[in-house]
């Protein structure tokens, strides 16, 4: 079944296919060689609309006392006209981490700029790996039944989650 030939279904948002910068791909080898999730490593900046959301969320709770060790996200907003591959914006990651860290009592934790970037890469790999494995599961299921529309469903995610969480 030629899955590649299928036209992607239009959803609410316009399809987003940025040009891949050459030489910025990292592949996870060995354990996941079948799934070939080529993780994009270009995470230094994100598109503007993305950051709007992040800063929107961040602005909501300005009363929190925690601070970024060296403010990363707001500083690195170059005017790149070429769309980078979509990533979770660093500012959002910082907010999310602090949201979870805040819940705990005790001493306050900060996170370094580099470490924050690395967490971003970690989560990016996590998401892309999950999608690649889900696509693999879907193809397996479609081949087994001889039908299917190539739509990744929640059940595909359910099948891969246990192993994924062991790997991460």
């Amino acid at each position: 079944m030629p899955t590649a030939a299928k036209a992607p279904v239009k959803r609410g948002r316009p399809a987003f296919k940025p040009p891949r910068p050459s030489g910025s791909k990292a592949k996870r080898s060995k354990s996941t060689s079948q799934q070939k999730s080529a993780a994009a490593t270009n995470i230094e900046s994100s598109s503007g609309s993305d950051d709007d959301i992040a800063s929107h969320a961040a602005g909501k709770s300005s009363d929190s006392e925690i601070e970024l060790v060296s403010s990363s996200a707001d500083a690195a907003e170059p005017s790149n006209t070429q769309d980078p591959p979509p990533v979770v914006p660093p500012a959002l990651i910082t907010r999310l981490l602090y949201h979870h860290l805040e819940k705990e009592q005790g001493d306050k934790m900060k996170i370094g700029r580099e470490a924050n970037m690395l967490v971003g890469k970690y989560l990016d790999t996590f998401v892309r790996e999950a999608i690649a494995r889900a696509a693999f599961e879907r193809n397996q299921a479609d081949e087994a039944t001889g039908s299917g529309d190539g739509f990744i469903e929640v059940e595909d995610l359910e099948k891969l989650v246990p192993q994924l969480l062991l790997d991460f």
Partner: protein
Amino acid sequence: MTDAEDQTVEERLKAALWFSVGKIVDEEALKLGVNASPQFIGALTELLWTQIGNVSEDLRAFARHAGRKTISTDDVLLLTRRNEDLAKVLRSCLKR
């Protein structure tokens, strides 16, 4: 912060995360020649949310164990101690 406020913040954060995950899914699905249902994106967002919770918990424990108050890159690399390939990916990302 009251509970209600806390909940709205959480909702907004989740919405922002959903948006980012949706974009990544769109891109990857296009590359892999598959389609993803909106439910899948929602479930993946929820999974990622939980994972972020676990990760931040671990990072805090690692940093505290090292007697630091700041989470460093070493702590993040320690997260990948059971997955050599993932550690390689992160290390190569760090070098650049």
